[in-house]
């Protein structure tokens, strides 16, 4: 159960995720779902099994050419993912044991969003808001009212990403805190204090909505 959200901004990209995963033994743990590939590229994974994501993470970390562009790395990544599935699969169980979605985002001169699945199929996504994981239906519903917006400044894109993940956590089973937010370029994971700043901004927006509603009721 996951939500990973990508929001393009005017000169960058923001990726945000929830921070809860379930171990193969059924125990809920806090879990970091967004990882750095290189200074221009980060990736996130939504999977029903953390073992696969950890295996992919290990393989990506071991790549000798991981500083190359996402376009160059695309075929390597698309081979690597099903390779990890195969390594973890038990031959006597013919059904697909691991379902997973991966999203890679890069910002060098231009934004690039690559969506990959556990079988190695992948496609380039348009430079618009994109999400993977079980929290997608609710996140998409929340995002509908923002879809007419032009590209946001990076700071506002971070607020929107945080807000959507936070509100999805409130109503979606299996999607939980802590929220993680990254920005590009360069690839940077927001600090705990920066995340608290976003949390307070979102709480302020909520207060504003309540205050406006109460004014409308009184008038």
């Amino acid at each position, binding site marked *: 159960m996951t939500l990973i959200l990508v929001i393009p901004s005017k000169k960058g990209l923001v990726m945000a995720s929830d921070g809860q995963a379930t171990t193969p033994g059924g125990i809920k743990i806090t879990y970091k779902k967004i990882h750095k590939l290189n200074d221009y590229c980060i990736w996130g994974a939504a999977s029903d099994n953390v073992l696969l994501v950890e295996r992919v993470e290990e393989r990506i970390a071991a790549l000798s050419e991981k500083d190359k562009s996402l376009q160059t790395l695309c075929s390597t990544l698309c081979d690597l993912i099903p390779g990890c599935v195969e390594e973890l699969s038990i031959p006597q169980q013919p059904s697909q044991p691991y379902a997973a979605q991966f999203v890679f985002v890069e910002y060098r001169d231009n934004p690039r969003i690559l969506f990959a699945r556990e079988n190695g199929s992948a496609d380039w996504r348009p430079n618009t808001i994109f999400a993977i994981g079980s929290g997608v239906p609710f996140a998409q519903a929340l995002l509908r009212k923002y879809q007419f917006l032009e590209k946001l400044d990076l*700071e*506002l894109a971070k*607020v929107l990403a945080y807000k959507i993940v*936070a509100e999805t956590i*409130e109503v979606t089973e299996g999607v939980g805190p802590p929220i993680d937010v990254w920005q590009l370029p360069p690839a940077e994971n927001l*600090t*705990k*204090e*920066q995340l*608290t*700043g976003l949390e*307070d*901004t*979102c*709480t*302020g*927006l*909520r*207060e*504003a909505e309540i*205050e*406006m509603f109460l004014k409308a009721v009184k008038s």
Partner: protein
Amino acid sequence: MSLTKKDWILLVLKQASLDRIHIMKAAFLIWHRSGRNIPDYFEFIPYLYGPCSFEVYSVLGDLQTDGFILQPPHPLPRWVNYHLTDKGKREAEQATKRTPHDTLMVIGQVCKEISHLGFFGLLQRVYSEAPDFAVNSMFKGMVK
């Protein structure tokens, strides 16, 4: 002996139990009304909700971890007040003894003014006193 950043937060919470946004704005107004000149104080930037120092967040986290303050859990995602623990009260008392009378007056006045204000009232007070720190605020159009 000068005050540490932890001391300033404890002195604010000694006046009143406040939530995070009120503590942030109190810390800012204390600095602003002291001629924006307090050695080794928090550094503020014009952030999405007005003046913000990310150090305030880290100091609050440290004070909570070290048992000087506590924040009761709350089921709704709203701001919740921080309170001094007994250990925090003792530490705040020690800090009070090291603080000049004039400074205590500023802290007391700021806390008295803002503790009863709601979110918009708080922003209105801060933005009217320090409009240069409202330039990046998402809320400046809503605060009249």
